[in-house]
């Protein structure tokens, strides 16, 4: 679509110049949903498929609850509104990269407004299994304009902590193969790089890992080596979360208190 005139110049990228404030909107935000001074905290765990995110989140959640924090979990494509639609679109061939991006953004917006913002207001810790960064990485690999993507997700709230579980592609491949095998989308087969799922997986995941790495500075990721044993990684996570939460007050708002 190079021969088309744009409706308007895209907004400048956010984050690149160090103006990100945790707990505030990245960009234009939702004018009808002010979130200033909400006491809850967002902790996002990012990383590619098969890196061990869900295991780490489950363990982290248990630990936080034992400490007495109220925890709300949210995860990609889990919105009541969009989950069936996204599954339907994936199973048919109608999904192009633009509608793909917009469906994911709709799913995120639904969860942001119905799960994340109410939980922040009530002083919960929101554990997010992936955040907007997976969407940015996937769309970036597919050639969607980066400035446009950042403007689109300008309604997202900057998490208080973003942990990026980093892994190399060789370790990832062995983990995925011994766990459940390679899947069509995780292998980027929609990019039509060939019929060999192994080659496609390797090349796609390599590109994804590069996208994540390029976002680490922009968004202030805390990078964790995910090749370590589960309990070692979990200890690292807990130590950093503890250090953050012990200095945070989740009871600012009178109607709320962690359990």
């Amino acid at each position, binding site marked *: 679509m190079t021969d088309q005139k*744009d*409706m308007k110049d895209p907004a400048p990228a956010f984050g690149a110049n160090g103006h990100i404030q945790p707990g505030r909107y990245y960009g234009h935000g939702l004018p009808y949903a002010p979130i200033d001074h909400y006491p809850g905290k967002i902790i996002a765990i990012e990383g590619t498929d098969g890196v061990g995110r869900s295991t780490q989140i489950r363990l982290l959640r248990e630990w936080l609850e034992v400490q007495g924090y109220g925890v709300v979990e949210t995860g990609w494509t889990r919105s009541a509104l969009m989950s069936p639609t996204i599954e339907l679109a994936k199973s048919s061939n109608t999904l192009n990269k633009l509608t793909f991006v917009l469906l994911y953004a709709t799913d995120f917006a639904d969860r942001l407004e119905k799960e994340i913002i109410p939980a922040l207001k009530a002083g919960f810790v929101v554990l997010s299994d992936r955040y907007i960064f997976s969407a940015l990485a996937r769309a970036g690999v597919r050639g969607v304009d980066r400035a446009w993507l950042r403007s689109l997700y300008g309604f997202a709230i900057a998490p208080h902590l973003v942990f990026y579980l980093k892994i190399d592609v060789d370790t990832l491949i062995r983990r995925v193969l011994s766990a459940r095998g390679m899947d069509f989308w995780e292998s980027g087969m929609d990019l039509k790089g060939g019929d060999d799922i192994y080659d496609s997986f390797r090349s796609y995941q390599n590109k994804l890992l590069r996208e994540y790495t390029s976002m680490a500075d922009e968004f202030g990721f805390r990078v964790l080596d995910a090749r370590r044993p589960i309990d070692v990684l979990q200890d690292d996570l807990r130590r950093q979360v503890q250090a953050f939460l012990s200095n945070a007050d989740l009871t600012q708002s009178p109607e709320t208190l962690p359990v």
Partner: protein
Amino acid sequence: MGKKKNSLTPTTFSLLHATDFADRLLYNIVPPLKAGMIVLADRYAYTAFARDVARGVDRAWVRDLYSFAVRPDLALYFRVPIDVSLDRLMARRVKLKFYEAGMDMGWSHNEQESFRIFQGKVLDEYDRLVEEFGLSVIDASTSITDQQQKVRNLVARQLEKPDLEVVNQ
């Protein structure tokens, strides 16, 4: 799905319509444009600019959202006062739709009252768009014949411009 459960927020409403638009742009608008044909679009991104902002989404955000859209060669805006549009809808005994009447905003339990408030905000936004995007305004309270004459004149003038490659079907 969403619409039936009345569970859309202003932002998910906006994003779902943008998704639908992106789909139609890629399949129904861009191919005929490439083939040198004329695409008549009943509503375009401007509808979203007016309607979504009336619901409270950010003006600049929704414009950026649609920056993937092709800018139309000619955009006609049929302007009509709220009372006239409401009278016309009532005369046809049209049941006001939930979102069309802005009932999701909770401004009034009365559908007509809600429609009036919501469409008032929508019309204010359209007035901005006329200037910002150079929409051609047609006074839609005049007779259909008059309106159609104006439309044909505007379209004819547009088609006389040299950059359109005429393709006979």
